[in-house]
């Protein structure tokens, strides 16, 4: 069996190129995602200023969310990362110095951390002792020490891990599909060969073993190469993520053995499952059926595929319902993304039947002999076409859904921001006294400091709270009404002085047994400080836009910067703010900056989608090249019966357009059924927003790809004399 399988591989290597490439790229992507995940978990940041100290003591940046019932030991404690730098207590330096084993301790002014020198080899042990002796501190050693200089890297951990997990899972699903279609095609092309084997005495299990060995012989080098390529891909991806601001550039790429091993395992398992599924029909069929001359497989969809498709559709509907009914707006994309994948896979599973139905049912606008032949071919070759249509459906569906999700979300956020912002300009940097000087400028109608952070509700218990915390806005009571458009339902923002807070009306109803005006809540600010705040106003906002508004004077000292980000100004036209000696950004620049902030996130999305699309495109091209090259004799026969080479090319071109049309149609269906609930949840209308050009580009790109992948091999296979091609066996 081994020699037979390997001999086949050597002679018919081209049939396995697609599988090889698909496995290589799939392994590389999955392993790179694993690397990103490991990078996030390890979070290695090389220390610079503190590099000389073997141990660096900082404050613990983690925060355990309060439990619903503090006495309940069963309840899981959720842990969050505090977004602002937590400062060590004044006596921390002295206490650390007294810990046995510490030779010397020195405070780092810039980061607030304490650098500790120990005897060589005792770093770890001393670090443990410091953490025990001085509660609330974290003693970092090795690569972790850099975190003291860059605590913002901690915040990126979760983003990086979640991003890598989501993207990796999607890559696994896509790889499963791409590899199984390419392998299935490779097996189907050799249907007669396997029938012959069966006729001369190979048992079904022998045939199965042969294709299994073939698949493994292809998978082994492909996954090995993929694993080798993974670190480069991972490093490149991390650099892109750093460029987009998702991860601080100081985080270093770390990838051990586990990600490539897992990726290789997934790839090999995928290949094995795919080849066994692909060969099932061929092996079970009696040899005579397969030896029969008309080898075009029928466009039937078995019960297993139908059941899987139904499962996918049910999952898609469930995700749509969840996104509309339960999800906070910020998380809707995490259900809508998988939804489109489920729909696309479901449609692809029904591929052969759908393709047959569509090509039969639709009146195609092609005329002339080439058009006529193109339609007949598409009807007859439904199963082969389905293998080409599947990647088009996946790619166009995912591209359409994800890109329009992005534009819809960005559009909604931009509109909301523009709606909330009433100021005409923003001034920065903020220094003490700037607010008063701004107010004194003639023509200024109102000014408010502006600072943002993240905080947590400590008391009473907040059931809605997650480890992301809540956005906190710091404003100035006198100027907030002129610079921001809050819809106040009760109370007044003018009372926002001292230890006070405004929150949204629905959220207020849900905290504890419900809080109202005059009640006190305890918030944990970004630097772990707990403050008791009296509720002075209730705001009306759309679900998902919950926030707390605090006096800027209260909030700003508890941020890493320590001062407000800017002063928002609303002024009469023509007011000259240039004399203040600070940077002035007008309203247009503010919304543009906000939109740009949104688009860095979008950029990450584009990058990941682009990678999956490129992957799908590889399989699409390979599948189509294989399918076209296989029709050498058919083309030759057509030319012998009087078709010109131009007519053959025209026919294959029209077939490509048909194939693209069907694939894009199915992809659009998958995208629309995921986008509509998304738009309802995010923007409150069933219509996603965004430029039509995106869709047109997707369609054009799909058509160009299929045409190129069809014409290149068609041109090559029709080059020689047709009689030679027909004479071949």
């Amino acid at each position, binding site marked *: 069996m081994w020699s037979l399988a390997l001999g*086949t591989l050597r002679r018919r290597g081209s049939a396995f190129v697609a599988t090889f490439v698909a496995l290589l790229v799939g392994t590389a992507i999955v392993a790179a995602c694993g690397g990103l995940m490991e990078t996030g978990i390890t979070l290695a940041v090389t220390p610079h200023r503190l590099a000389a100290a073997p141990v660096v003591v900082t404050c613990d940046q983690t925060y355990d969310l309060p439990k619903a019932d503090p006495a309940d030991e069963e309840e899981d404690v959720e842990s969050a990362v505090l977004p602002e730098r937590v400062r060590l207590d004044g006596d921390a330096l002295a206490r650390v110095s007294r810990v046995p084993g510490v030779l010397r301790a020195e405070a780092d002014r810039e980061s607030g951390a304490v650098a500790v020198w120990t005897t060589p080899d005792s770093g770890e042990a001393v670090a443990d002792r410091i953490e025990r002796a001085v509660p609330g501190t974290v003693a970092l050693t090795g690569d972790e020490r850099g975190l003291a200089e860059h605590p913002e890297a901690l915040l990126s951990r979760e983003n990086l891990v979640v991003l890598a997990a989501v993207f990796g899972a999607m890559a696994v699903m896509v790889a499963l599909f791409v590899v199984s279609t390419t392998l299935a095609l490779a097996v189907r092309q050799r249907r*007669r060969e396997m029938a012959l*084997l069966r006729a001369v*005495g190979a048992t079904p299990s022998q045939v199965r073993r042969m294709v299994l060995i073939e698949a493994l012989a292809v998978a082994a080098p492909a996954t090995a190469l993929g694993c080798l390529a993974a670190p480069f891909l991972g490093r490149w991806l991390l650099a892109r993520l750093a460029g987009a601001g998702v991860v601080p550039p100081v985080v270093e790429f770390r990838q051990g053995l586990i990600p490539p091993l897992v990726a290789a395992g997934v790839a090999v398992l995928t290949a094995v499952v795919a080849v066994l599924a692909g060969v099932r029909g061929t092996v079970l069929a009696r*040899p005579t059926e397969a030896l029969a001359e008309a080898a075009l497989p029928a466009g039937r969809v078995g019960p297993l595929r139908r059941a899987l498709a139904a499962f996918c559709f049910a999952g898609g509907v469930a995700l749509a319902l969840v996104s509309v009914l339960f999800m906070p707006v910020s998380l809707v994309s995490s259900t809508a993304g998988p939804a489109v994948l489920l729909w696309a896979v479901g449609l692809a599973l029904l591929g052969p039947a759908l393709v047959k139905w569509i090509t039969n049912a639709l009146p195609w606008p092609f005329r002339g002999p080439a058009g006529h032949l193109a339609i007949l071919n598409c009807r007859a070759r439904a199963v082969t076409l389905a293998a080409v249509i599947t990647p088009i459906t996946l790619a166009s569906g995912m591209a359409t859904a994800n890109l329009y999700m992005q534009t819809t979300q960005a559009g909604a956020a931009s509109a909301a921001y523009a709606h909330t912002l009433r100021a005409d300009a923003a001034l920065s940097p903020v220094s003490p006294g700037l607010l008063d000087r701004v107010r004194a400028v003639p023509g200024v109608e109102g000014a408010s400091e502006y600072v943002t952070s993240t905080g947590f509700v400590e008391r009473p218990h907040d059931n809605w709270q997650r480890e992301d915390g809540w956005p906190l806005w710091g404003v100035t009571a006198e100027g907030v009404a002129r610079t921001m458009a809050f819809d106040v339902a009760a109370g007044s923002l003018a009372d926002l002085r001292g230890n006070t807070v405004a929150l949204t009306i629905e959220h207020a109803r849900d905290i504890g047994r419900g809080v109202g005006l005059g009640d006190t809540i305890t918030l944990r600010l970004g630097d772990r400080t707990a403050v008791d705040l009296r509720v002075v106003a209730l705001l009306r906002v759309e679900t998902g836009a919950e926030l707390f508004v605090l006096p800027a004077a209260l909030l700003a000292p508890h941020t890493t910067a320590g001062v407000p980000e800017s002063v928002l100004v609303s002024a009469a036209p023509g007011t000259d703010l240039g004399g203040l000696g600070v940077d002035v950004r007008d309203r247009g620049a503010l919304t543009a900056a906000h939109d740009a902030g949104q688009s860095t996130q979008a950029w990450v999305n584009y990058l990941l989608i682009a990678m999956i699309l490129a992957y799908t495109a590889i399989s699409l091209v390979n599948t189509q090249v294989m399918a076209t090259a296989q029709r050498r004799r058919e083309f030759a026969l057509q030319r012998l019966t009087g078709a010109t080479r131009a007519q053959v090319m025209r026919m294959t071109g029209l077939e490509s357009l048909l194939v693209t049309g069907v694939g894009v149609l199915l992809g659009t269906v998958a995208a629309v059924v995921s986008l509509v609930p998304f738009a309802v949840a995010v923007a409150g209308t069933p219509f996603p927003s965004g430029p039509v050009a995106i869709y047109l580009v997707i369609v054009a790109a799909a058509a160009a790809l299929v045409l190129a992948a069809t014409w290149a091999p068609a041109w090559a296979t029709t080059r020689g004399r047709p009689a030679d091609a027909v004479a071949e066996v």
Partner: protein
Amino acid sequence: METTDAVRLEAVRKMYGGGGGAVEALAGVTIGFPKGTMTAVMGPSGSGKTTLLHCAAGLDQPTSGSVTLEGREITGMREKALTRLRRERLGFVFQGFNLLPALTVLQNVTLPLRLGGRPVDDAQVAAVIERVGLAGRVGHRPAELSGGQQQRVAIARALVTRPAVIFADEPTGALDTRTALEVLGLLREIVRTGGQTIVMVTHDPVAAAHADHVVFLADGTLVDRLDRPTADAVAKRMTGLGAWGRS
């Protein structure tokens, strides 16, 4: 009589498709193929001759009736047992696509032995290849051989397991007259010297004339029989059956 039959079909019926669209390919055929003889099965296109061959060789299961091979009932046998039987007791030669393109002549010939996990007796394999006249060609791949040579490789492969019966489906269909005569001579020779049984489906009266007996099929039933045939006699009977088949 029955004991000397290598293969025997008893009231074999075979239906294709179901419901209203069912087609009866064999309508109750009873026939024996005596040991050590060569029998040609003839008939117009669609008369059921290929179906008869497939049922007789256990490649396909009859709808009803029974097939015995060397006295053993093979209808209702499980696929795995049938496969083993094919591998050990039967040989096949088809019209086209007979060889695995990835394998050399030697590898193609020894394939049934290796599939059966049997040791390859080099001397015996060499003798078989010698017998079909391809001694100098063992390292070649099918694409480097002529049609007649490819067919002789297929015959060598069919012979290598020393099968009781060789089934040939239009073995000369894709060959020119001279090469066809060579292949037929080889088959004849095998029956004469090796004592093997050959069942050959053909539409060529010249090919049929090489057989000991010719049976004629039409619409799924046996309609005629000819012993010690000549090409002329076979051609006349075929014309009598009506349509000239081209399968």
